[in-house]
Structure formats: structure tokens, C-alpha cells
């Protein structure tokens, strides 16, 4: 099934850097989490900056009545003129009066609340008791000093798991937990595939509603659908669950390896596995093939953003024949991405953390054909004639699984195709407004 690994046994030395990090903080994950968990409300305890960050990142997705908000700390909160716990209780009461339909209230810690050591855990427990779980109240930290972008989701899921340990609702023990939020359509596809493999009682974490998780115990197996779930995995393991080690389900190869690891764990016969996956595998390969000519041989540089980078690089290199220059990741969970890193060609540089100016220097010197980076860097690169693919789209687009393999390839191919289409007769003359 898996092709032999091309990599050297010892992965190349990782570039570790500390300097300016051009990344989002964990609060940003609220943007997709609040769409995924449809009866949850995310209340950030923070400053105006936090509120401004979420609305800037959410762009046009801000509705008149969103399911997230910020309790903005004011001068008098900091001066100790009022009790912040009383203040928070009052704002929560106001909010719940407005939104009685909310079944899960999530208090989200931010840099200011962490720095002043505001005890959000205690606040959440107190509110949970007060409202008698109508709604239930949880908390996690999405602060920039502790979390980078997708790590916000990690902390949220870990909080859900810990909550299950305390308030476990049902007696049913989960057999398989798929951790990591994926688009609804992807969740449905995975459900069908796992069902066809004969696996029942599959629990997706997070679910679409705030219902409590089934019990997690020593017989529970879990598999990660996303690479950024270190804390969630630790929380599940602390309840006795066992992780299924797998590649992440990006591209045909990744999805097959991911499903295969699950199938092997539950003793699904190779014949059945082949029968179930044959058609979608063929479709995935076919869809991907459309884009290979565009990406083949192109030199790609990935800036750190979501921790998806090692998996994306593996997919780019093995299924689209791109040449990878550098794979940046804000954080490397060595154990979880070991399989991904092992499949990268030996000369690839791996970098963890960031000093953005130095990394930009490195990137320019390498003259890549495509740079995967955040929106703060993308247009400036484009203005210098360097083609970019803005990276947060990977967090907002359905890319996992067989049926999305072609779409994932298209995300990388699109900027290259576009460049070829509109560069045309203006060769060399770059024109941007000053």
C-alpha cells in the first residue's frame, strides 16, 4: 500500500528561530469553530485588539448577530476598581438573556487576561454551576503568547475532552474518535467510508452540536484528522484512549494511509478495505492528475502558519511532484508528524518558529516558484513578482479526504495558472500602485 519511504533515516536538522512571528493567535480559530459547533457561543475575555483581530480576520463573515463576542476589559477592571469576576458574570448574564438558544458558552482567554492572571477556569466553573449546564460553560486559552492560529482549536478540543471526564453524560463508550474539525461535507464522506468499512459508533470531535461526548476509556481509539492537536491527544490519552498513528488525510496517499491505519486497528480485512477505497482512490488520482502539469517541478517555500505545512509539503512533493525548498511550521509535534517528515525528500529544510525578516531573506534568495504564506506577506511578495498561495485558505476550505484531493491541488495550481494567464504581453513590466 504505502510506497517505500524516500527519506533518509535521520531527518535533516531543523532550523529553530525566535524573532518576529508573522502568525495569527489562537483566537482566530473561533472563526471556523463557531460555524462548526452550531449552538456554541465563544466569548473572548480580552481587549479591543482581540475584538478587532477577530473581526478583521473574519472579514465579511461578521453578521449583525454573530456567535462570538469580546468582553473588553476596561481601565477600571485593571485598576481593581471593580471585581472582574462580577463584571464577567454581569456581561454573561446580559449575553444569555439576548441569546437563550445558546447551549454551550465558551470563555476564551487572551493575552491580556493571561498576563493579569485572570482565572478563567474558576470563572467557567462558577458560571457552569450557576446556570446548571443550561448552557454549559467551558474555557480555554487562545492567547497569542500561548497559541498560534490552529492551536486555539487544539485547546478548545482538549477542554471538551476534559469536560467529558468530569461531566461524562452517557454510559456508552466511544470506540473511535476522529479528532479535528473538518468541513461538514468531509465529515459526511468519512462517515460513509468508515461505515462501509464496518466501523460503527464513530464520534467526531468537535461535533456539529454541543452534545457531550460519549465516555472515553481504555477501549477508545482515536485518530487525528488534523496535525495541530497535541493537547487534545494528550487529554484523550490521559483518559486511557489510544492514538492510531497515521499520516494526515490530505491527498490520495494521505487519505488512504489514514483510513488504512484505522482499518488495521479494527481488523478490517484487506479485501474489504480495497473494495471500499478503490473507486474514491481512482477519483482522487484522476482529479489530482489534472493539476500535476502545472505544479510538477515547481519550487515551493512554505511559511509557518497552521502546522498543516509538513502534510501539505508531503502531498505537494509526492502527489504533485513539486520540489520543496523549506517547510516552516509554527510548532512541530515530532511524534504526530514523524510520518509526514519521513516522507519528505532529504534535502528539504524544516523550520520551527520564525524570525520573519530572516525567513523572507532566505525565501527570496531561494527564488521559489510558489510561496505559501499568510496574508500579511502575500501581496508584498506578489508585488515583487513572487507567486503566492495565501495559507489560511487551507484552514477554511474542505481539503481532507479523497473527493477533495483535486480541490487541494487546485488551490496550489490556481495562482500559477493565473500568473500564466494574465502575465501575457506585459512580460517583465511589473506595475503596482505605489
Amino acid at each position, binding site marked *: 500500500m504505502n510506497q517505500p519511504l524516500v527519506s533518509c533515516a535521520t531527518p535533516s536538522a531543523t532550523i529553530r528561530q525566535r524573532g518576529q512571528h508573522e502568525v495569527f493567535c489562537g483566537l482566530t480559530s473561533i472563526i471556523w469553530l463557531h460555524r462548526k459547533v452550531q449552538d456554541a457561543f465563544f466569548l473572548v475575555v480580552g481587549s479591543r485588539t482581540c475584538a478587532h483581530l477577530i473581526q478583521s480576520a473574519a472579514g465579511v463573515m461578521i453578521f449583525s448577530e454573530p456567535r462570538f463576542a469580546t468582553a*473588553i476589559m476596561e481601565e477600571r477592571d485593571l485598576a481593581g476598581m471593580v471585581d472582574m469576576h462580577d463584571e464577567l458574570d454581569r456581561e454573561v448574564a446580559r449575553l444569555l438573556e439576548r441569546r437563550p438558544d445558546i447551549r454551550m458558552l465558551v470563555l476564551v482567554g487572551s*493575552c491580556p487576561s493571561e498576563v493579569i492572571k485572570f482565572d478563567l477556569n474558576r470563572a467557567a466553573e462558577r458560571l457552569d454551576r450557576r446556570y446548571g449546564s443550561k448552557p454549559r460553560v467551558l474555557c480555554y486559552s487562545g492567547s497569542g503568547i500561548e497559541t498560534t492560529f490552529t492551536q486555539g482549536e487544539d485547546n478548545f478540543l482538549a477542554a471538551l475532552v476534559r469536560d467529558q471526564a468530569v461531566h461524562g453524560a452517557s454510559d456508552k463508550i466511544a470506540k473511535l474518535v476522529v479528532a479535528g474539525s473538518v468541513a461538514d461535507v468531509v465529515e459526511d464522506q468519512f462517515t460513509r467510508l468508515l461505515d462501509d468499512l464496518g466501523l460503527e459508533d464513530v464520534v467526531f470531535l468537535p461535533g456539529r452540536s454541543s452534545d457531550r461526548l460519549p465516555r472515553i476509556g481504555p477501549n477508545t481509539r482515536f485518530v487525528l484528522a488534523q496535525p495541530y492537536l497535541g493537547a487534545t491527544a494528550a487529554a484523550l490519552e490521559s483518559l486511557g484512549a489510544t492514538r492510531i498513528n497515521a499520516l494526515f488525510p490530505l491527498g490520495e496517499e494521505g487519505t488512504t494511509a489514514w483510513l488504512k491505519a484505522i482499518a488495521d486497528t479494527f481488523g478490517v480485512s484487506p479485501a474489504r478495505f480495497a473494495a471500499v477505497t478503490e473507486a474514491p482512490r481512482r477519483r482522487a488520482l484522476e482529479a489530482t492528475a489534472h493539476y500535476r502539469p502545472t505544479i510538477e517541478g515547481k519550487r515551493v517555500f512554505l511559511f509557518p502558519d497552521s502546522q498543516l505545512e509538513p502534510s501539505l509539503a508531503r502531498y505537494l512533493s509526492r502527489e504533485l511532484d513539486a520540489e520543496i525548498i523549506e517547510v516552516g511550521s509554527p510548532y512541530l509535534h515530532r511524534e504526530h508528524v514523524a510520518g509526514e517528515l519521513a516522507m519528505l525528500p532529504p534535502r528539504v529544510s524544516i523550520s520551527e518558529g520564525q524570525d520573519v525578516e530572516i525567513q523572507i531573506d532566505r525565501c527570496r534568495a531561494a527564488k521559489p516558484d510558489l510561496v505559501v504564506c499568510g496574508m*500579511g506577506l502575500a501581496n508584498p511578495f506578489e508585488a515583487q513578482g513572487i507567486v503566492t498561495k495565501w495559507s489560511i485558505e487551507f484552514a477554511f476550505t474542505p481539503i481532507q479526504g479523497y473527493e477533495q484531493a483535486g480541490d487541494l491541488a487546485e488551490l496550489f495550481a490556481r495562482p500559477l495558472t493565473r500568473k500564466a494567464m494574465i502575465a501575457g504581453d506585459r512580460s517583465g513590466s511589473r506595475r503596482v500602485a505605489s
Partner: protein
Amino acid sequence: MKLTMWTYEGPPHVGAMRIAASMKGVHYVLHAPQGDTYADLLFTMIERRPSRPPVTYTTFQARDLAGSTADVFKSACRDAVERFQPDALLVGASCTAELLQDDHAGLARTLDVGIPVVPLELPSYQKKEAWGAAETFYRLVRSFAGGREHPTEIAPNCCNILGPSALGFRNRDDVTEICRLLSANGIDVRVVAPLGATVADLAKLPEAAFNIVLYPEIGESVARYLKKTFGMPFVSTVPIGIGATRTFLAEVRALAGLSNDEPVGEAEDRATWYSRSIDSNYLTNKRVFVFGDATHAIAAARIAARELGFKVCGLGTYMREFAREVREAAEEFGVEALISDDHLDVEQAIIDARPELVLGTQMERHIAKRLRVPCAVISAPVHVQDFPARYSPQMGFEGANVIFDSWVHPLMMGLEEHLLQMFRDDFEFNDQAQASHLHGHSPASADAAGEADGGTMLMAQAPSEDAVWTPDAERELKKVPFFVRGKARRNTELFATRKGIRPITVETLYDAKAHFAR
């Protein structure tokens, strides 16, 4: 604490970034936690800048808190100066760094980086973006223009323009338009700041005869400082709208010692004729709700009432600093000013005022879309669509032309409006249909969904509790064109309550209509 779903302004350090990004040769070192770099994409995405804003962030993390964040800050300053070689360095803290209380001003002084360092004190838990921008601009001008000479021999026709900045609403084209207008009128514009200025330019500010403040939110404190220090008078009439532009021009010409007999530029004014042409007849007394920053809101209300013949049914701003000015303006139109930065208050005020057109910010665009009221954007905060590629000033005569088009466009066109009224049961041309010249970004089904949700649909609001309508009257009410139906319902209910009429019949509806005679 204050619960905030949406904020009209960012924190004050974003205002400081706007000043740094507006200018050339100014670099900003911002002591801030990881993640605050999100602000870069306001510039690279919304304003579509081809370069990164000149800001270095320390992006400290939790592990740095155990060590010395002050050292992180100092090395960030040194690296930034070495790499970018700016003419001046701004240093400041974001809200989280403010809590750490590293004395960045003191630290920056000990750096000895060889260039002027301007420390910023921006209280993040009290103040907001516009204040931060104004304060930063003021600190820079004090640092570089302070101590300069105001020459005694200055040609009376030379001036500076103060206020335009990065991320300002249509500032790029306003500056072009006003510079063009001024130069056609024989005025010599010396320095435009902060947009496009260097610190050397700031030092030249005292070398002009007077100042023009285009955006008081950002430029007025500097104009006051220059007046106090160098005795430079300033004009702060904002030239948005035909009338305001004429007044502005008269004031500027007077200050420049030019006669007001033959001002130049009015030939480009098409808005006045367009507004007088008979096709604009149906604009008369359309109810319009205005909200935005103080400058744009006041200007918009005056244009609406005096140049387009609308009726201003609400006026407000999110800028408390300018509450007095907005209250005064609101008095002119007989409405009570709404001073609030809570969008839920604004939404309620819009529902209560039942306007036929909303002029507001990005947020009012969302509110109006939900309520299915036509809307045009007149003020920051705005999203990417309001940094257009085409020339689209708001100021001056061409600005008035742009305004005429963009405010009238969302309304139902005249003939369409008449036909709707005459044949309201038409199967394809009914009041659920979007105006035909607008693409349907809120399809008819959204309306039904909105009603089912119990969402507050402005046009089809549920009757208030004590008003009982007979089925006939309810049916008759539906024959009132949808854009004034809310108003008709409210007037009828008001009339019925006053007269003690229950239930409301067809007769009551028409009695009320005669009584109020719209």
C-alpha cells in the same frame, strides 16, 4: 468589562500604525504579543498595499515573560533600525505590552540608535484607533516641527494639508481632488501629511501660511498645535458636498488673500443639475438614516437634506470625542443624535427610524442587508470593496458627483417604484423582487427566512402587541409600497392608539394617512 460583538474602531496602536504606514521613512517598533501582526493585513489586504507596513513587532510569547521582555524589545529596535534604516523610529506598546509596563520610552532612549526616537503613550484600555492616530501624528509633528522657525516672509497662498492617512475612507482620491482644486484656484500646497510625508516634510510644516484640516479626527490636534506655536490659521470646513466645497473654497481663498469673485472648479459639478433634473423628483423626502465617523456623518446629513432633498430621520456617530459637533448638526434636522459605539444600539435606532436608505459604515451595510433596506457606505470602517481601483473621491466637486451616483444607485428607480405601486400583485415584478438594476445578493427567499426566524424585518414587522388589525386592514396595508410600509404601519398604530381605536380597519388606515399626509 463591556460586551462587544463588533467594534467600529481598533485599538489606539492601530491608529499609530496608520500614521507610520502613511509616511515615508518612519518605522514603528510595537511591543506586542504573537498574533498582533494581524494588523498587517488591514494594509496588505484591505488597502491592497504592495509592501509590508513599516512595523516591527516584538511578538513575545509566554516563555519570554519569564525572561526579560525588555531585552526582546531592545533587540527588536536595534534590528529594525539596522535593517530598514528609517529616518525616525516610533516606539510603543499594544494593550498586552502595556500591562507588562516595560518602560519602552526609557528603553528606547538608552538604545542610542543614531536616529530620532519618538515614544508613544497610547492608553489601550481607554482610547481607540482615531485617537491613537491623532496622538501619534501630533507627537511626530511636535518632535520634528517644534523648534523650527516660522519664516516672516511667506507667500499668503501657500498651505499644508493635514489629516489624510492610510486606511482612511477614500483619502487617496480626496487628496488628489482637493490638491487639484486648490491649485486651479492659485493655492500652493506645500506639505500633505501624514499621507506620503517624510519627517523632513513635517519639519517644513511651519513654512506655509496656513493649514487645511481635511480630516479633523486625525489632523485637528496638529492644526491647533501649529496655530498655537506658529500662529498659523487653519481651515477645518470639510469639503464634502457641493455647499461645503463652496464654503471651503471661499474660506481658503480668503485666507490666501484671493478675492472670492471667480473661484474655479464648479464647472465639474454635475451633482447639482442631476439632483435638480426631474428624474430626481422622487428622491424628495426619502427617509435616510446617517451613521459614521463624525466628519462624514455630518457632511452626509447636510448633503442628504440640502442637496438631494432627502429627509434625515437619524444621525449618529461612534466617536464620542466629536459628540458635541454631531449633536449640533442633529439639531439642524430635528433629530436626536445617536452617540454610540454599540452596533446593537445603532441597529435598534435604524429599526425605530424606519429609513428608506441607510448611509453608514461596513456594519450598517450588514444591518441594512438584514433589514433589506438600501444602503451606501459613507465612512470608515470599511472593507476591501471601499478601496476601489477607480478614481472615487468624496471631496470636492467630483466627490459630489461620486456621492450622487453611489447614494441614489441602491434605491429603487423611479418608474419601477411607480409600477410596483400600481400593480403590486404582478407575478414577477412584485415587492419581493430586488430592484432590477441590483444583482440579487439577498434573494427573495432570504426575506421569507428572515420573517420565519422572527428576525426584525424592517418592512414587514409584526404588529405591536396592543395594536389589533382586521384582516382587511392588514391586506390593505400590504398594498402600500414596501419601502414605506413600515412607516405606514407605525403611523396608523400611533394614530389608532391616540384615538383609542380598536381594531384597526381599512378606514383607520386611510384616516391615519390623511392625518399624517406624507
